């Protein structure tokens, strides 16, 4: 296939925005959960992989005759249910026993490992392609930058989900209840909020968003059982540099990270990408530990 000459800067910008949108999808769900429960849910990355593999199972393993959009919706729902299940079966009983955030984090690491192993047992450890048979293939060119249709969907989803979450947070009673729990869970209970129920919903929504991220990355670059670790690391870094627990902070941090990584490798090898991400993290931890958006 003939690929036209592309000026490197527009492509770097496009790549940065695409990476930012992916990290944003992970960071949005991660921050939503962290903001409400105050612990790092490390299983979040594996939940994203579960969403991708659910779509793989529907479209490839069982080759069910369903529309790709329906398959993706089911995949996101599966991720949401897994996230909700983890909260209901592991985190909630631990919180009731007044477990510390460190204990919850370790439990989530265990859940991450178990989910990853479960995926590998069911689908093997091999890298798999999740290309679609009907729909999101092809590419567009903007100012010389090539962006695939899948990547357009990733950017659109990242922005749309952020907008929806911002609307929910600002204009719905559910969003305000989440803010109240973030602020003071005990008082939220005192005013009549069933905090367990709200936290359960937060886990479902946050995990479903992670599932969307996993699915879209699957269509873009493929899937493997260990894909969750990289997603988790980047999502966590984006959250920390943006302002952990903050919806807008996570979104902003994701794009800062995307730009830093992609422009950072302009003149050096792409293998430095992860190192750049961690350098950015360390710089923020030293200079502005509260993140870009201070609460």
């Amino acid at each position, binding site marked *: 296939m003939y690929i036209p000459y592309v000026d490197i800067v527009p492509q770097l910008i496009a790549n940065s925005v695409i990476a930012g949108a992916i990290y944003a999808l992970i960071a949005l769900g991660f921050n939503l959960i962290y903001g409400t429960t105050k612990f790092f849910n490390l299983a979040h990355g594996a939940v994203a992989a579960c969403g991708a593999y659910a779509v793989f199972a529907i479209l490839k393993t069982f080759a069910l005759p369903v529309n790709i959009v329906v398959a993706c919706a089911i995949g996101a729902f599966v991720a949401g249910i897994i996230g909700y299940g983890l909260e209901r079966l592991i985190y909630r009983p631990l919180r009731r026993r007044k477990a510390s955030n460190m204990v919850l984090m370790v439990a989530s690491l265990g859940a991450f490992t178990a989910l990853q192993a479960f995926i590998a047992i069911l689908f093997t450890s091999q890298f798999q392609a999740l290309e679609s048979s009907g729909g999101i293939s092809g590419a567009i060119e903007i100012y010389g930058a090539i962006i695939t249709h899948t990547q357009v969907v990733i950017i659109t989803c990242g922005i749309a989900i952020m907008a929806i979450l911002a609307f929910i947070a600002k204009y719905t*009673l559910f969003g*305000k*209840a989440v*803010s*109240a729990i*973030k*602020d*003071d869970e*005990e*008082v*939220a*209970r*005192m*005013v*009549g*909020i*069933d*905090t367990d129920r709200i936290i359960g919903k937060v886990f479902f929504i946050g995990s479903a968003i992670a599932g969307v991220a996993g699915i879209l990355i699957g269509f873009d670059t493929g899937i493997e059982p260990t894909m969750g670790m990289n997603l988790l690391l980047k999502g966590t870094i984006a959250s920390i540099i943006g302002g952990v627990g903050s919806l807008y902070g996570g979104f902003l941090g994701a794009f800062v990270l995307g730009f830093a990584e992609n422009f950072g490798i302009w003149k050096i090898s792409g293998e430095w990408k992860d190192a750049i991400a961690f350098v950015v993290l360390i710089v923020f931890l030293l200079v502005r530990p509260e993140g870009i958006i201070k*609460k």
Partner: protein
Amino acid sequence: MKEILLKLNDVHVHYGGVHALDGASVAIDEGEIVALMGPNGAGKSTVLKAIFGIAPIHSGEVLWHEKKFVPIPHEVVKRGIAFVPQGRRVFKYLTVEENLEIGGFIVGDKGELRRRMDEIMETFPALKTKRKAKSGTLSGGQQQMLAIARGLMVDPKVLLLDEPSLGLAPKIVKEVFENIRLINERHKTAIVVVEHNIKSILSIVHRAYVLDKGKVAAHGKPEELLSSGVLEKIFLGA
């Protein structure tokens, strides 16, 4: 004859080896203001927390309209009991209006929520002018008003107030106590108030309980307690 709304019967609350309540019995009648007094660690706040399901009840019972129930915070609110915790604890990142909206979380109907909010703003005019302000930016007195207003959003039959004067200037304390009296008078809301400011609180309450070491040491009308010498005995060891 007034009906007993809320009752604690021989309630024991243990925190590890510490007996915060050691067989306390308290009854709240319809439409009255009741003070819970006593030295630090007497168990005053624990009584409120036990009613609300925040303190772990080891034994004893909580009754609502003479019927026993197991208190769970979000369900207690649905029965018509509201709790204004110590230290105000407003949701500081939400606006005044949003705090009130969250206070009426269980109300459901948006029109009713708006009606109650407007009514409460009339009772607390200082909040009306600050309705769009983040509550974390309010003064201590305004935050206390907001915390009480938030509790009133469920139109409670019983309002539990934990040290509403804590950290406030005397002038503001007077204002807070006057508001407590007005709420009781206008809405016939029964109010249980934990307070250290004995002299001021006794001027607005109908009855008071004096707690000491997790037990009720005395109870009665303010004038009875003042003349009995029990307050000096408990507070000063005289």
